[in-house]
């Protein structure tokens, strides 16, 4: 396989966006093209989960490639639930690594706020098992709540730990101009004050309002190129060094140990092995904290901390922006937002920004190895990426 590099990146603010979905994909793509200086693209992959259902639009890639005037480049949509973004990057990687293409644009876009919260929640719930879960009314918050309760009982995680994740990530988001939530929160305000239960009510006990990510619109893009192309571009050399993808049972109750996220564990291990790194080599990571509990658990499953000790590392401040392994400096899904199809590409955008040393106030000093975990379903389809700065 050939080496694959990230030559350009772009992103929209993750928020409520008032323009069409195809433009939400096209805008960051233009930014990425401008960032790289590239004008000719061989192929476009567009990651999206819900355009047909939420926006009444299909064949999104055709619309995007036309919006960008990139015809006759090839174009295709990649739909893989909330892991669509990293899955599209994987497809782009394969196209370049195989020698099939030299320049691939990967865009992720979602416009979820076109519908109300009830419809958005239902739309996401369609990724659950249709006969064993969905028909019984399961939603992702419900799944996460049951998972959290079990995790609390088994490993001693408390609501305070969850609140600590929320506070950390939402405050990180204050430093990210593209983040959805620019609202600092405190443990006192969401957990300890007499008004905390109203400020931060239970959504699905034990998960509260501030344990869940916002429903966001947004887009992000990366341009993947061959080494030959990368060396002609005057940008830091960021190599996409490792990709791992793994799946688990569709229905969560079929797992032997529901508190183990085996797809995360396997996808991360594969990604690290391919890149030739270990979890301890990682300087900065973006984990898929759609719910606060997931950051804690993923930080264990990918190998950063021993199983059951992610919350202890959190307590010690190891995952803070100034800690030994900053997690979600962008604000994560919790603070930056979660436009599902764009999320995995947005994670890659942040890691490339960090490795380039262009993250401003949230810059992790000296970051050279970065990692993302894009979590699809309730852990049934996970893609992990490892990036390294080479120059």
């Amino acid at each position, binding site marked *: 396989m050939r080496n694959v590099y990230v030559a350009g990146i772009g992103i929209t603010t993750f928020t409520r966006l*008032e323009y069409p979905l195809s433009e939400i994909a096209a805008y960051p793509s233009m930014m990425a093209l401008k960032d790289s200086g590239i004008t000719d693209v061989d192929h476009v992959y567009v990651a999206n989960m819900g355009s047909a259902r939420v926006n009444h639009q299909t064949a999104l890639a055709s619309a995007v490639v036309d919006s960008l005037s990139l015809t006759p480049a090839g174009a295709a949509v990649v739909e893989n639930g909330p892991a669509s973004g990293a899955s599209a990057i994987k497809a782009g990687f394969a196209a370049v690594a195989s020698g099939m293409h030299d320049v691939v644009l990967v865009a992720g876009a979602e416009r979820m706020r076109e519908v*109300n919260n*009830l419809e958005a929640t239902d739309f996401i719930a369609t990724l659950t098992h249709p006969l064993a879960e969905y028909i019984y009314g399961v939603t992702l918050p419900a799944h996460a709540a049951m998972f959290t309760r079990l995790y609390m009982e088994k490993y001693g995680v408390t609501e305070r730990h969850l609140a600590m994740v929320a506070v950390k990530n939402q405050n990180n988001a204050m430093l990210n101009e593209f983040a959805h939530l620019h*609202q600092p929160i*405190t443990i006192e*305000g969401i957990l300890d*004050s007499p008004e*905390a239960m*109203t400020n931060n009510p239970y959504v699905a006990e034990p998960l509260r309002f501030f344990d869940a990510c916002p429903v966001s619109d947004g887009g992000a893009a990366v341009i993947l190129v061959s080494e030959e192309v990368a060396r002609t571009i005057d940008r830091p050399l960021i190599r996409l060094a490792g990709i791992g993808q793994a799946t688990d049972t569709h229905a969560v109750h079929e797992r032997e140990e529901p508190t183990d996220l085996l797809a995360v564990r396997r996808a991360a291990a594969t990604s690290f092995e391919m890149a030739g790194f270990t979890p301890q080599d990682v300087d900065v990571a973006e984990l898929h904290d759609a719910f606060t509990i997931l950051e804690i658990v993923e930080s264990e499953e990918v190998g950063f901390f021993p199983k059951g000790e992610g919350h202890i590392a959190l307590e010690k401040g190891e995952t803070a922006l100034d800690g030994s392994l900053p997690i979600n400096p962008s604000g994560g899904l919790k603070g930056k937002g979660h436009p599902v199809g764009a999320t995995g590409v947005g994670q890659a955008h942040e890691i490339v920004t960090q490795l380039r040393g262009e993250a401003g106030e949230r810059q992790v000093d000296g970051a050279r190895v970065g990692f993302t975990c894009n979590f699809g379903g309730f852990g049934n389809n996970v893609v992990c990426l490892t990036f390294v700065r080479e120059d």
Partner: protein
Amino acid sequence: MPVDLEKILRPVDNPLKPFEAKYMTLASGEHMVIRQIDRDEIPDILPYLEPLLHVERDYYDVVCARIYSELLAHYRYRAQDEYVLAVQIDGELAAVVNGRQVSPDLGMSLHTIALRRGLRVGAHAFAAKMEYHIDILGHKEVLIVAESPIGFRRWMIEYQLEKRFETAHELGGVPSWALTKELFDRARSTLVVGRRPVPPEILAKAEAKILPPSDPPTPPADLLAATRSMYDPTATALIAQRNLLGGEVDHA
């Protein structure tokens, strides 16, 4: 004998029971004070509201125009039995709510406008207003309408308001909804918060000067966005949501 027309035009002097100031901690950890203000503080507020006349998003323009006129009418003695509560964070104006007593049994909620977003500031302010009507003024019910889907969600859905569609609200021909004491009691434990008395230093800061909001809503840069915000189907869907959550099934 000359007629003093001003005496005729002015509202009857009918002092309302005072609203004792209260405070609460927001999710941000900041302390927020809600206190009743007199006529002489209204000129301090009006300049902070005026820019919102140009914010179409979430019907700020409509709400601002209306509350501005209501406050001005109150200030210039052209509104009967109106009151105004100011909401402040570190002295900064965070929200304004107002209403009116129609009779000893009936309150008329006028407007709630939040100048800080994302912290339930408006929701807390509305709860304080309802507390004033039901607990302090002793109204049996309060008539309420909403201009924006956010207001509809906060008032009609969260408080499970009753329809009073046969009664015209003072704000116009839109259907009225009502908060009764029973509904308020039901919501009290989850939606109505705040502590009294306000610590003297916090109250003193609020009373010293009403400071301008540091991060008020602003018009979107994109005109398309402004147009798009005029259309929002959320309210209809929220009625369905309330029904799904166990409220009355009424497709009227």
